[in-house]
């Protein structure tokens, strides 16, 4: 029994010893491991921390403590709110909670502030459990990824930029395999340029983009451009519809996924080519205009007037041959008789860029000085400034101007001489009449708004104004005759034409009474008389005939009678009592004053007519039978003395 007990005790002891040994070994191992672990934490480049379940720090490595500017042993019991702005600390705490709640390791990219600078950090947060398996806190490891992120962003951005440039470029872009020349990519503009779809283009080779006759030189051009031997390459592409479109190409070698590709940027230069052609054409035209212009055109140096070019007209006007001008200065040729005129001109050009039609004087080869008008512009040729001058001789223009000036003066003098009493009276009397007539016309334009009585009144005002006007005209004329100021303008006149003109005018009046004025004009010679006055007499006599004739006709005859022409106006009107005929030509005489007032006569018409005929050395006559009609006639000598 004792032996058994002993055996058992020994066994237990051995077990205890073993257990103790094991525990001791285990403890040693643990201490060693903890040291290793601590040293690892301390030496890791990452920042590491432990927080309890309330996000209160338990410990951290010195790497992190350095950031917080504390010793690592001082972290215990502190929170993020003591180190970071409120919003950031709040976010860290919320993340801690999330990690603890879900119990899973979480990786976050987040903002971090150190020394007032912002960083981007990558954080790994691990939930920490106690021995019972309950969540007790959180372990965090984080490191700076700012630079890495920036580099990534830059790369991404640059890729995006390239894609953007590629797709939205105004130029067509093709990318081809350098070795096989097969096209591997193109943009929208490329589709538009070629009129092919992208799919179709990607099945083509770079050679297929160009017309056959351009392939060789284009491919050589590409090669040279890749080798940077040439800058620009101009060629043509052949579109789907067979159109040859001119393009300028810039190509370069690019690397994609480590492989070399050729990128060609094609610009459609149709418009530019067109403009170039137009410019060439315009230059040709300009050069023709330059040579053929009727104006003198010259190109000279600003500083000294050195002739660079000149047209043919200069030779014709100045008398210098082209070679005598070119290469010489205006000073050598003594072209400007007043050099200060040129200085003035150059000053004006420098100030305002150009001058238009400036009057100057120039000297011909013969020494003759003449006035000219000159227009000048500054033009630039190969970076140097020149004067482009266009000039023409204005001698004739000046002479004509002088003549006109003298003529204007003469006519003005004549008008001043005419400012005698009668003309002043005429002006003064006609001024109010003019205003009355003009305003009657203004009212006349508003006819639609007037009632019957208003219209009637206006007609009455107009009729009486007309009478007043005629009266004024006639009185003035009589006065002119009597004061000897009545002047005839004698010229050769065609009486037949004048008669026809007057009859045409008067028939408008006659037709209102159902009458007609007819003429029987035989061969009437050209006579010398004052056409306006003769017209006045004819108008007056026909007007009277119409006035006093109710039915029948008015006949006008004209015939040669010896050395005179006889003109008669015969009517079928009321006639004139025999005893009244002798007073007929007296001033203001009216056979029937009341009738006349109604018909609008001044009693001066016949008197003036008789005077006019007598001033022409003719005679006025009248024959009449009461109730049957009257015949007024006058003679005009064919030749005036």
């Amino acid at each position: 029994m004792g032996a058994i007990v002993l055996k058992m005790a020994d066994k237990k002891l051995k077990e205890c010893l073993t257990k103790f040994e094991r525990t001791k070994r285990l403890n040693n191992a643990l201490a060693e491991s903890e040291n290793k672990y601590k040293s690892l934490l301390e030496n890791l480049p990452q920042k590491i921390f432990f927080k309890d379940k309330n996000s209160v720090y338990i410990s951290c490595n010195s790497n992190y403590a350095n950031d917080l500017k504390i010793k690592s042993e001082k972290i215990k019991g502190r929170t993020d709110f003591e180190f970071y702005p409120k919003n950031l600390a709040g976010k860290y705490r919320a993340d801690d909670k999330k990690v603890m709640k879900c119990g899973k390791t979480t990786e976050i990219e987040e903002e971090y502030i150190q020394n007032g600078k912002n960083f981007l950090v990558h954080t790994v947060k691990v939930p920490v459990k106690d021995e019972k398996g309950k969540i007790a806190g959180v372990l965090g490891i984080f490191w700076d990824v700012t630079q890495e992120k920036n580099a990534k962003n830059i790369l991404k951005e640059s890729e995006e930029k390239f894609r953007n440039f590629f797709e939205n470029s105004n130029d067509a872009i093709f990318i081809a395999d350098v070795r096989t020349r097969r096209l591997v990519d193109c943009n929208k503009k490329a589709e538009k340029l070629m009129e092919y779809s992208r799919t179709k283009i990607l099945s083509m080779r770079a050679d297929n983009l160009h017309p056959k006759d351009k392939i060789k030189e284009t491919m050589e051009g590409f090669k040279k451009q890749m080798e940077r031997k040439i800058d620009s390459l101009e060629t043509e592409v052949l579109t789907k519809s067979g159109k040859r479109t001119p393009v300028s190409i810039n190509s370069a070698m690019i690397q994609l996924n480590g492989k070399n590709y050729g990128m060609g940027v094609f610009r459609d230069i149709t418009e530019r080519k067109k403009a170039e052609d137009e410019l060439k054409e315009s230059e040709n035209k300009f050069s023709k205009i330059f040579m053929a212009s009727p104006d003198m055109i010259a190109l000279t140096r600003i500083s000294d007037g050195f002739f660079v070019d000149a047209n043919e007209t200069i030779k014709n006007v100045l008398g210098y041959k082209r070679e005598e001008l070119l290469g010489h200065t205006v000073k050598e040729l003594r072209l400007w008789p007043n050099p200060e005129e040129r200085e003035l001109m150059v000053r004006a050009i420098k100030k305002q860029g150009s001058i238009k039609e400036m009057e100057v004087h120039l000297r011909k080869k013969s020494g003759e000085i003449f006035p000219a008008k000159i227009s000048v512009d500054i033009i630039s040729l190969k970076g140097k400034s020149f004067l482009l001058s266009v000039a023409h001789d204005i001698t004739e223009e000046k002479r004509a101007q002088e003549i006109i000036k003298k003529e204007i003066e003469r006519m003005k003098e004549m008008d001043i001489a005419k400012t005698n009493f009668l003309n002043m009276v005429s002006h003064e009397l006609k001024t109010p009449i003019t205003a009355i007539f003009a305003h009657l016309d203004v009212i006349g334009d508003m006819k639609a708004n007037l009632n019957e009585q208003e219209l009637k009144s206006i007609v009455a005002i107009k009729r009486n104004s007309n009478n007043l006007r005629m009266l004024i005209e006639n009185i003035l004329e009589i006065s002119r005759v009597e004061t000897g100021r009545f002047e005839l303008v004698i010229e050769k006149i065609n009486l037949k034409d004048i008669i026809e003109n007057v009859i045409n005018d008067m028939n408008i009046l006659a037709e209102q009474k159902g009458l007609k004025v007819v003429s029987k004009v035989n061969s009437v010679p050209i006579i010398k008389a004052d056409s306006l006055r003769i017209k006045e007499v004819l108008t007056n006599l026909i007007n009277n005939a119409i006035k006093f004739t109710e039915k029948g006709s008015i006949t006008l005859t004209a015939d040669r009678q010896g050395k005179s022409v006889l003109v008669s106006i015969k009517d079928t009107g009321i006639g004139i009592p025999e005893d009244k005929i002798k007073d007929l030509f007296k001033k203001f005489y009216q056979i029937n004053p009341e009738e006349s007032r109604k018909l609008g006569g001044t009693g001066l018409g016949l008197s003036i007519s008789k005077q006019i005929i007598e001033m022409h050395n003719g005679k006025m006559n009248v024959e009449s039978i009461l109730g049957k009609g009257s015949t007024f006639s006058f003679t005009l000598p064919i030749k005036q003395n």
Partner: protein
Amino acid sequence: MKKILYVEDNQDTAEAVQIILNNAGFQTEIALCGKDGLAKAFKGFDLILLDIMLPDMSGWDVFTKLHGKIKSKFAFLSAIPVSKERMAELKKVGISGYITKPFEKADLISKVKEILK
């Protein structure tokens, strides 16, 4: 629209003529003396109608001061009638028309149209 300047010292006449010409489709401005006319003349009128007897200067004076300096045409208005020969002489020195006062509306418009044709 053609622009006309009418230089006339009688305001009643000037205003009525302005209405008549405007109704006929012109754009008319008036000046009541020679000085006023000279001041307005450079506004680019197609026609300048000048009354010969103005209070401060004659229509001729206005014309001589403007002749060759502006592109407008000129016509005189006067109570004194003009002969054909005289008209021909006037045309030679740059007077395109002559309208005798008083004038009828139709006559005025047709003469102005003729000058501006």
